[in-house]
């Protein structure tokens, strides 16, 4: 059976040097990058025959809905579970795997994306409900509204958009909180959440708070409009529109703020 060849960038722990290793595993039908990694896990031997520690990576759903398995596959940021081997290497080409570069590496292909969850806090990405007890049906909404909101809501916090964004810096040593305090760009995913919650009939009531969170340093203004984010988003979320919508709303709010001063 023809082998599947992989070249993997490894790193033993946070802030340690990285190095490459090559592996070769047997091909199977319907194979994706994850099943190739699973083979390495079972038999962690390099192409050169050296026994090594198994490659560490992250995955949960295996159907491109949880966002966890994101990495650079042949240099392109994407989910490794939906990266099918036959499509990547139809003639037995070597597939390269690397961890994302905009998040700190935990080990091998695993990175720490906590900053994305912190950013959801920062932009207050939730509806301020009065409580979870029985309060009757929610507000009526048109199908048209749902058809705009639902695609925005499919963001799986995978980080592709941040990885591709030229405005996002590679991680330094500082914590996520320090980074926010320094005024790092919040990124497309969180801005998209602002749009999502600000278009919800209940969410609208707190639209100003969310806009405030993305105004000023590190906010929506910092977007260089390179549109890389939309190009790599696996859920095809219209991020450019979201940034435009939120940007306009933020400008409006800013002008209003001046007028009221």
């Amino acid at each position, binding site marked *: 059976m023809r082998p599947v060849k992989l070249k993997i960038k490894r790193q033993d722990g946070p802030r340690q040097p990285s190095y490459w290793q090559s592996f070769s595993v047997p091909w199977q039908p319907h194979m994706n990058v994850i099943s190739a990694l699973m083979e390495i896990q079972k038999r962690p031997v390099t192409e050169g025959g050296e026994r090594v520690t198994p490659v560490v990576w992250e995955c949960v759903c295996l159907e491109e809905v*949880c966002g966890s398995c994101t990495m650079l596959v042949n240099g392109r940021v994407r989910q490794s579970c*939906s990266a099918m081997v036959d499509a990547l290497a139809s003639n037995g080409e070597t597939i390269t795997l690397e961890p994302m570069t905009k998040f700190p590496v935990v080990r091998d292909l695993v990175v720490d994306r906590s900053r994305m969850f912190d950013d959801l806090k920062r932009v207050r990405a939730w509806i301020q409900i009065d409580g979870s007890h029985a309060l009757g049906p929610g507000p009526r909404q048109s199908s048209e509204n749902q058809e705009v909101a639902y695609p925005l809501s499919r963001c799986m916090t995978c980080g592709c958009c941040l990885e591709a964004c030229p405005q996002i810096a590679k991680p330094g040593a500082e914590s996520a909180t320090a980074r926010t305090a320094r005024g790092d760009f919040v990124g497309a995913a969180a801005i998209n959440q602002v749009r999502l919650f600000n278009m919800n009939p209940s969410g609208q009531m707190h639209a100003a708070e969310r806009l405030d969170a993305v105004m000023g340093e590190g906010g929506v203004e910092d977007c260089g409009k390179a549109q890389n984010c939309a190009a790599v988003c696996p859920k095809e979320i219209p991020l450019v529109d979201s940034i435009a919508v939120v940007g306009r709303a933020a400008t409006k709010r800013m002008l209003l703020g001046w007028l009221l001063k």
Partner: protein
Amino acid sequence: MGATSTSIRSQSGKVRRAIVVGGGLAGLTTVIKLCEAGVPVDVLSLVPVRRSHSVCAQGGINASVNTRGEGDSPQVHLEETIYGGDFLANQPPVKGMCDAAPNIVFMLDRMGVPFNRTPEGLLDFRRFGGTLFHRTAFAGATTGQQLLYALDEQVRRWETVDVEDDKGATIPGEKMVRKFEWWDFLSLVIDDAGLCRGIVAQDLKTMEVRAFPGDAVCLATGGPGILFGKSTNSVINTGTAASAAYQQGACYANGEFIQVHPTAIPGADKLRLISESVRGEGGRIWVPRDPKEQRSGRDVPENARDYFLEERYPAYGNLVPRDIASRELFRKCIHERRGIYNPRSNKNEDEVYLDVTHLPREVLKKKLAGVLEIYEKFAGEDPFTNPMRVFPAVHYSMGGLWVDFERTADGSVALGSPRNQATNIPGLYAAGECDYQYHGANRLGANSLLSCIWAGTIAGPAMVTYRKNLAKSSWDCPSSLFERAEKRDEKKFAAILAMEGDENAYALHDELAHVMLVDCTIERKNATLDAVLAKIEEIADRSKRLGVTDRATGKMNQGAQYVRHLRNMIVLARVIAQGARNRDESRGAHYKPEAPARDDAAWLRTTLALHQGEVDGAAAAVRFVREVDYPLLGAPVHATDAVDVSLVRPRPRKYEAADAANRASARPPEAGAQNAPAAAPTNPRTGNRANAR
């Protein structure tokens, strides 16, 4: 009861927290309920909670809102759930769930879930298995994702809320929710009196082992599907936490009831689900009448197709319950060798067609995009123009940790009772797929998301009551209790790191999964089950001689963690297989060709399993009992394996008839059964016909 029992702080001034392990729908709901009652919580999860397995649920969540005026009601929902579960579920908790369902869906809507809408702006509902009604609310075909996100967002909001002391002043540095993501639950901390006082867990980034005190603990750790190897489940669903709790004395119930879903895509790493909602929206299952048929699916003319489910079950058709549909598919492919021809392998495969090509593309895009995209991505074929190829796959565990409930006089559950969702270890609660409570012998589609949220809805208040009445807070227990537990688990982990045997954990898991899948799912034979049990003992024995592939310390080590999960899977496999061996009848998902009938006289009872012997796999046995006794807040509680069938009288389950599942609603139960349902709802037969596709 001490003066401090309702205080937010322990005697030593620490914030008294409760613990929720697991951040799927069940866990997050429990957290929200605890926070709303003012109880601060520590949440632990293997993965960031937003990536929990609940994210995979596609089809939707049931609630009898009856927006189409079909005569649906919570009472009909109850009856269909009970009937679908072949009468093995205790009925009061199911009644509580079905009654609460509309408000649960409304709550989710208020939280911002982008549910699909009707032209009038109301929630849209679709059909699912085991019912003739439109009862399933949905957000495209990624409903679980949307529900999980909504709850995750609410919990994140609680992460920003300060804890207040008894006088209402904020306690610096203390937030209502503290999240511990990338932590693996290892064990319970149980004191000398047998009370659960907290847990021990391991930080997966550093492998640090640490004990967490908690006044009450809820396990909401999901199902054990990975035990069967490839399934529709996420890779983290090993059932490790439930297994560990079982080994420490928690009772495990109805373990043998494993749901096999009829329609999944074959894959190298996972059998990806094609949701029942596809059939709910009109998708049809068929095979060519002629097994030698080699034309591609779409070119096979109508009269050469065998729509075998529709033929046999004229009313429910493609939406018969999953256990039945899976057996029919299995029979077609395995027994009748009627699986369809696959040009890639150039032979007939164990696959049938699931066809949506006759449905309007617009509708498919609006209502099923998420699922059809999965097919397109992973099978590499266009489901809009070619019928999909599917086969059954292990999907869900009806069984799980045994939990209690307190019944009200009218046959529902008493909200706020500390017995609800309580395991037999005082202070330990369970909710979600890891509990056994709501689905009997077979779960109806779209009832799981509901049962998870409902279980969390009652587990939270139960824990609040428990905590309030606890004589001594876990936070006032001597630190030695926690240090001892921590040491014990540190030692165990060190022992794993030192393993130098010749067995490989992944290969051993493959072996275990293979026998469980082949011999302990759709059809079960006693002789084969005996062989399975022998194999499990062999594997348990060999698991003592594993060689660990990764010896890294102080940093993420998945290899060593996996050894622990494997051992816990072996223990649960024994519970499942032995339960199946014992139950000599066929009921719901448990089918024995040798005993094809349901036997209520002998087996209308809950399987209750207790762990016996050594913890960690080998030299252990399952002790099956008929009663559970446990002390709760100083009072003894007694429960038995008898099923509470007071609301819907058991009757044979036959989906060939048109209104099989809800026929009881027209007839009050006979004398002897307690608490007849108040009023018989409208007979749905006339109402639903117009909507049947």
